[in-house]
Every structure is written in C-alpha cells, then in structure tokens.
C-alpha cells in the first residue's frame, strides 16, 4: 500500500464526530476499555450509511456490534445525498433512533476518500491516518472482522505523530 491519506479537514471532521458520538454513546468507552484491538491509540471505523442501499441500515446493528466486539470504535455518518427527511423516516421505520442525528458526511471528503461508491462504506482510521481502502458493502461477520483487522494492522505499522 503506497498511498496513505492524511486529510486535516477530514481529521477535524472526524474529531467532531467522535466528540459528538462519545457524548451520546457510552459504549464507545467500553469498547476502548475492552481493548482487544487497541494498543496505544484507538482504531475507529467510520461507516457511511445510506437509506437508499437496502442492506445498509438493515445490517448496521449487526456490523456495529461485531466491530465493537472486536475492539473498534464505531462511528456512523449519513451519505450527504440522502435528504434529511428521507433519512429521518428511514431510521425511524427501523427503530434506529441512534442514527437519527448522526453527522452528514462532507461530500467532498466522501469523494476524496472513495466513500461514495456504495453504502455502507467503511473507512478505518487511527490517529489521523485513514486507511486508503474503504470497505465497501455489507458482509458476513467473519469477513467483516478480518477486513477491519487487516486495515488496523496496516495502520499500526505507522507510528502516530
């Protein structure tokens, strides 16, 4: 892997996202404490969701649960192309109230990071460095965890600055 993405704008956006989500989701702290995938710096996975991709919302609870169990901080964002009303109706219909007020992904950031080809698209990040390869789509538990660990292991090869 030769290309690594350090995007200050994206990092600032992520920080805001983390702060916001930590305030409303104490489980993040528990995930960090569990520490199975965390060494000196936590590894987070940002999942961009769209109500227009049928499996994205349906599989969000499972994929979030599995990723958390593996020690990842799990963050969600809404695809900016989904109107807010449509999003609100979709998450309410599935009783996914935790997603109602998630941040909207900055569209340019989504393009820059290749996150808008599909939903869900998930990007692993550690101390400001985004893995350049989004994980596209839904998948079974084992493959999901293996991919998250693959991305995390490659990110850990780089020291935090």
């Amino acid at each position: 892997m030769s290309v690594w993405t350090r995007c200050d704008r994206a990092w600032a956006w992520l920080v805001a996202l983390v702060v916001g989500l930590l305030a409303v989701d104490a489980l993040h702290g528990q995930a960090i404490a569990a520490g199975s995938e965390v060494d000196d710096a936590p590894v987070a996975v940002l999942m961009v969701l769209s109500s227009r991709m049928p499996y994205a919302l349906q599989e969000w609870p499972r994929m979030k649960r599995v990723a958390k169990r593996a020690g990842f901080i799990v963050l969600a964002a809404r695809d900016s192309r989904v109107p807010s009303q449509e999003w609100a109706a979709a998450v309410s219909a599935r009783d996914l109230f935790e997603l109602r007020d998630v941040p909207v992904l900055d569209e340019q950031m989504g393009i820059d990071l290749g996150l808008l080809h599909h939903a869900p698209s998930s990007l692993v990040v550690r101390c400001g460095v985004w893995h350049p390869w989004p994980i596209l789509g839904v998948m079974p538990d084992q493959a999901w965890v293996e991919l998250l660990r693959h991305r995390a292991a490659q990110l850990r090869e780089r020291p935090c600055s």
Partner: protein
Amino acid sequence: MSGLNHWALSAGFVACAMLVSGVGAGSTEHLADSCIPAQEYVALNAATVGLGQDGLPALGSYERISPDGRFILRSYSGAQLGKVSLIELPWLEGEALKAYPTPLSNEAFPVQGTWRYLIDVNGDHYRFTDVYRRGRQAKPLFRGGMTGFYAAASEMSLEASVQERGGPLAEEPTRKIHLRSLSWPQDADPDSQGIGPLQLMTLEILDDGQSARVVHRQGPQFICDGRVATDGNAYALPMLSVRGDEFSAIAQAPRVGQPSMRIYRLAPSANSVNHSCDLVADLGLTVSKAVFGFARAGESAWLAYSDLGNVYVHDRTLGVSFRLDHGKSRVLASAFPGLTRDGRVIYGASWRECADGAKCPEKNGYVVIDPYQSTAYRAYWQQQGQSPPQSCIRWQAVQDERLRFARMHHLTP
C-alpha cells in the same frame, strides 16, 4: 418520451407492428434502419408512482433492466406502489409510463438473460408474466438458489439453446432450464467460510410453461479459494454475468496491488463444480457495482457502472471505459445501470431541465442512452483515426429485442 423523438417512436412502432404481423418493412424500412436517439429522459409522474419523501415522484432504488429495456424491476418504490414495482417504459407516442405493484421484497432480482423468473429475496421464483399480469396476486412457482447479500441469478441454457437453434427464442414445450446464482450468504457455515468468500448454486428446472419445479440442485459451494493468495478472501459488490459464466467484484484486501473492479471466470457448463475464478479483466479502479451486458460473437460482454453519479460503459475488448453524456442539468444516477441486449444503457436518475433550479425543478425518472453515440466513444475512435465498429443502435435492433422478449413471455409487443 421526449417530444423530439415522437416521430421516431411512432415510426419504430409501425415498423415493429409490421414485423409482428409479418408485413414487410416497405416504406418504413429506412426508419427501422435509423439510429435511436442518443439520449432519452423519461420522467416519472406522481399520479403513477406516488410521491417520495422528497416530494418528487418516487424514484425507487436498485433497478434491474429487462433484456429489451421495456421493463424495470425496482425496489423501494414508495408508499403508493409498495416495496418492489415493475415499471414499463412508454413505447408508443403519447403513451404513459406504467407501474405495476408486485408481491416481492426489496432487492428482489430477475433471472438475467431472459427474465423468465423474478426471484424474491427468500428464493421464491415467480414467473415474470404472472407478476406482470397479476401484480400482488402472483404466486411463486418454486423456491431455491442463493439468497443473501448481493444475490444475482442468470439463465445458463439460453445462449446455448439459441445458438443451437441458430435463431431467437420461440414458444417451446417443457424444457430444462439451468439457473446459476451467486451471493454472499450471511448464514453460511462459518467453518467453511475461510475457503472461499462467495457461494454459487446451480438449479435445474423443469418448466412446462404453467408449472415449474426444481429437479436438481448443485451447491451451494464456496468458490475462488484458489485466488486467496493474490486477491485475498473478501470481495465487494459481486455481480454475475448474463450467461452466468463470469462475475465482477472488487477484491477488498488484495495481497498484490490495490482494490479494483475485476472480472473473474466461472465454469461455463451448468454441471461443472470446478470454477477457476481466473482473472479475465481488471478495470484498474474502484467503482460501484459493474453490471454485465450481453456478449456478442467473439467479444466479451460490456460492463456498465456508475461512479459518483456519472454512468460509464466499459468495452472489455478495448479495455477502455467511456463516460456517457448528460443531456440535462445536474443528472445524478440513483443506482447502478443496466444494459439491454441491443446495447442501450438504462438507469434511474434525477435531473433538471436547465441549470436554474428556480425555473427548472428537479425531476425523477429513467435515462436511456445509446453509448455508441456518446461523445467519449466517438472521440476515442476519432483519436484512433478509425471509424467506430458501430456508429449507433438502430431501431431495428431495438424492435428485434422487444419482439424477442414479447414472444418469449407471450406479451403484446
């Protein structure tokens, strides 16, 4: 349809009707030989499809295009039509787009190649014509095949039988049909999952035109374990080819290179269990789902895909992708496109008639494109100093496909 094209549509239908009735093309022959419009925008209207949550006619998502481009199977159809609806694009001048409710669930999919059956996500197979004529009252014929994430199916016997006969499909008595399906099932045996990420199944169906039943199942079997050393064991956005002999997917964690949309070979025989998954093409970039068109003699099937709202076709013989033109303002493809047998690209989209949002409100509908008339395709051949092998899609080809599909499904053309 666009008003500019009414003459062509009318002429096309006349020629088509004459073909149906066995009358020679006569004076309309030259029209049948003319090019179809380079682009058409077919707007949805709220009376037919209802309003979506954005206040526009409900666009839906996850559209699948019939081989003749007449029908679109779409999920997320909105409150008025229910989860999955069947859209029939207009053909005659002044004809309205039609929509039919179905008993299917979101992400139901057709058997590619023929649309003989529409498959619900639980594996229930419905006869296409039953859904078309009876809507929600349609009943499944049998259950089988792969279900799960990104399930797709193709009829394998079609092309072989057509080639054997040397002609298009006609009414047939009871026949054996082989359906190959591919998916990534969530309930796969975790102990076996490590040997290959995707699963495949082939069904042998006996269909007498009224009833149909599964007489043999092969699989499900994991495939592509031999590619782990180079492509890893996780793929994204798999899609089966029309003939079931290839699939496209993005290797998510390749051991070599970086993720890209790739085409892999499957055994062409319905009875084979040895799938090489040989790499046959690599687009070299990550795009949304790559959908297969119909292969022509001696050539690989084209692909169509969307990328950030634009739609592309990929000519595998050339190894080149061509971005398709936008004939309207702010055109945004809503989901992945489809290719008809004659080569048209059809996709759902939103657009404006002009750039001024105040003067031109957003519209939802379907876009029909002739890729051979696209700026990028013509520019490529101009740069080569050659004439393109095909300058456009002609009405005759469109009519032929419409007739072929209508004959197979006993529909009025």
